[in-house]
């Protein structure tokens, strides 16, 4: 079992114990605080996923065995916490795994789906779309290769 699955399971397990929204959001903010920041040279226009309310920076690199290595950052605490959850699902995975993973279902299960919705405009939805399109492109080029 890879580390990513363990991390996601740990997040799922923690959420089961939260009765009050306060506990859940404190946990999400703490996840965000533990997320490493992107260095300034990567917090640039080229890596920016613009949201109406907050911004997300996304860098996609190549990991071992065709996996994608994701580095993501935001200017908002809660969004950073939500990014940590997305990373737990996507980081270090193959394009097939990423495209096969139902991130909406995960956010629905954690009762955070509204943060992935259009109206939030926090950049998360656009970020997920960009990760998926990179995964699709990698898949297409490996098919050709």
């Amino acid at each position, binding site marked *: 079992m890879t580390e990513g699955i363990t991390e996601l399971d740990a997040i799922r397990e923690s959420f089961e114990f939260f009765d009050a*929204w*306060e506990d859940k*959001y*404190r946990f999400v*903010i703490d996840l965000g605080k533990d997320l490493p920041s992107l260095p300034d040279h990567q917090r640039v226009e080229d890596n920016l996923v613009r949201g*109406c*309310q*907050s*911004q997300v920076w996304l860098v996609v690199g190549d990991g071992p065995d065709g996996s994608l290595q994701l580095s993501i950052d935001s*200017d*908002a*605490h*809660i*969004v950073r916490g939500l990014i940590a959850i997305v990373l737990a699902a996507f980081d270090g995975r193959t394009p097939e795994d990423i495209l096969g993973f139902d991130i909406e279902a995960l956010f629905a299960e954690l009762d955070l789906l509204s*943060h992935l919705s259009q109206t939030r*405009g*926090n950049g998360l939805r656009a970020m997920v779309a960009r990760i998926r399109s990179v995964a699709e492109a990698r898949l297409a080029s490996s098919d050709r290769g």
Partner: protein
Amino acid sequence: MSQSIRADFPILDRQAHGEPLVYLDSAATTQKPQAVIDAVSGYYETMNANVHRAAHALADEATQAFEAAREKVRAFINAPTREQVIFTRGTTESINLVANALSQRLSPGDEILITRLEHHSNIVPWQMLAQRSGATLVACDITDNGDIDLEDFARRLNDKTRVVAINHVSNALGTVNPVETLIGQAHAVGAVVLIDGAQASAHLPLDMVSLDCDFYAFSSHKMFGPTGIGVLYGKRDLLEALPPWQGGGEMIEHVTMEHTTYNVLPYKFEAGTPNISGAVGLGAAVDYLTSIPQADLVAQEDRLVQLAVSELKQMPGVRLVGEPERRLSVISFLVDGAHPNDIGTLMDRQGIAVRTGHHCTMPLMERLGTPGTVRASFSLYNSQDDVDRFVAGIRKAQSFV
């Protein structure tokens, strides 16, 4: 007073995330009183038909209701004639209508003067007009407090200035601009003046005759009426002289395959079937607004806004964005160590609706050096309890970050 007003708005009884709703996003859209909801559903229940067309009882009644709404709006803004009240989709469409109709009147070397305080809807249509016509878009600066820099305005105004477009009240900071003075200065150089009144119409008495602007644009949904309808007021000679913008039914007098003669005002600018139920709802909203004594309305709202401002000023870690000389309805602020989006989300979980982000004023946010703010905006249905919950909500949100 405020208790009875509150009872007119059924939505204010609902909860959000299990908490009683505190609605502080009226600058985005106001809630609707029962009278407006009834007027819209009553229109569909009893008289729905297309206007100005058929000769049957329903069409007559619908046309009468639609034109009665126009007359209510005319009286509300003290426009000289009903022909000067053009129904549009809202403020944005009103501004686009003017910007398009002015296309042939501008040429390279001409200038369009706006301010840093504008909403995107009072920037982008003018950028597009500048691109079409070769004219130059000029933006007047603001002070650090969020007021229009009057010296800079006077400096940038010159005999090349053909159009001046300014908001009456800033949606992001609540600044009430001295539009009477600015209109006078603009007219002195021969410029045509459009006032974006989106944030003013629910709060300030409007008098087109004494204001003397050439165009005034506002939206129904920000003054307790339905979405999807708004108004463009214009001076008669200008409206007569300008070409129509959109073509279609309703705006024509006679059509052959080669040529069309246009309908008279206001229909020349109202192509297609209008938003009839929306107009009827807007008429009901005007009736509702005018039924409340203006003094009560302003006093209650101002008292709450001033109270909230003074509370925020005393809170450690809270910083007001914009401290205009005269403020109306809107408070923008930041919380140290937190992004506006964090505060907005944590307020939302407490049942408090505020807006976060750039408020469609990115050039203003850039000028103020912040990517966005948290914005609370008040209306006549807000209460002392709303202010208390708002302040407590910020304190609680602060404890998370």
